[in-house]
């Protein structure tokens, strides 16, 4: 398990995080959205995050964490950003390609929406250059007995917080 994954699991579990986005470039930085941060000062949020990470990481791993900003749900919904899914394309062979605007962690978040659904397999996200407003894509596929339809994909994505499915997707 890599460090970003370890951090994400700790934040999801102990802070009941709703959304975690991390980037690694000579250290890890990013942000976490949790209802627990409501009415908490920005500095106290850092204390709460540090408490969780201190339990989950070694001292050496902790030094690799630059900072993880903490946002309450309401704040993130106001000044944060939903991940925009621009297109859901039906592929020959039964799968669907999901095209979105964002970085790898955004694509992983969208992909994660399918994890709780039975019988759906997804591919690793990859850059999707060329298309306007789209930067990442991945594929999702159902089973032969229960194929994945565009309607079902729309249902799954629309019920997931922080994802906005664009009109005509």
């Amino acid at each position, binding site marked *: 398990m890599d460090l970003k994954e370890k951090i994400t699991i700790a934040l999801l579990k102990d802070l009941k995080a709703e959304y975690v*986005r*991390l*980037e690694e*470039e*000579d*250290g890890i*930085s*990013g*942000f976490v959205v949790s209802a627990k941060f409501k009415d908490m*000062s*920005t*500095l106290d*949020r*850092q*204390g709460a995050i540090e408490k969780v990470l201190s339990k989950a990481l070694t001292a050496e791993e902790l030094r690799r964490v*630059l*900072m*993880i*900003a*903490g*946002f309450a749900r309401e704040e993130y919904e*106001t*000044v*944060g*950003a*939903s991940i*925009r899914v621009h297109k859901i394309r039906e592929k020959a062979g039964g799968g669907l390609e999901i095209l979105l605007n964002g*970085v790898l*962690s955004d694509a992983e978040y969208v992909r994660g929406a399918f994890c709780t659904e039975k019988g759906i397999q997804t591919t690793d996200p990859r850059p999707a250059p060329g298309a306007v407003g789209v930067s990442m894509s991945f594929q999702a596929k159902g089973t032969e007995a229960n194929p994945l339809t565009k309607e079902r994909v729309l249902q799954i994505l629309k019920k997931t917080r922080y994802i*906005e499915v664009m009109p005509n997707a």
Partner: protein
Amino acid sequence: MQFEAKEYYQASLERMKEARKIYTGGSSYALAMYCGGLAVECLLRAFRWKKDKTFEGRHDLGDLFKASRFLKIDDEYLRDKGASDEAIRKSGATLHATINLVGILWHNSLRFASEAKLKKHLHQLDRLKGIKKDPLKKNALDLLNHAQTLIDRGVVLWT
């Protein structure tokens, strides 16, 4: 030493973490405030560097805030993500208020300041009135919470 945007950004987050630790330790509110403001300075330099790679020797946070185009970047980010005009206006107003408060409380010469000197500085700023407990602690907390707000926004805009 010469620094690039990424290095300023990384330093910004590390300084902010240290500022909180020093504040929590309670041994020097002057140093905690200095580190908190320095974190903001590093953040603004990181964004400024993306547009202008020349070195800016001054430590005026208001000027650096303008030069960093932080508000414009925030505006463009929110617009790109489909935020409402009201949300964009509110975000800009919060950032303005936040940098103003940090700019009032922080000065680069805080690095030379003892706790006693900090108290005199805060007295001159009329920031001691009406605070029953430790006024240095209260002002340090105000600065650090506002600095952390800017850093948090910076993290979202950067990642």
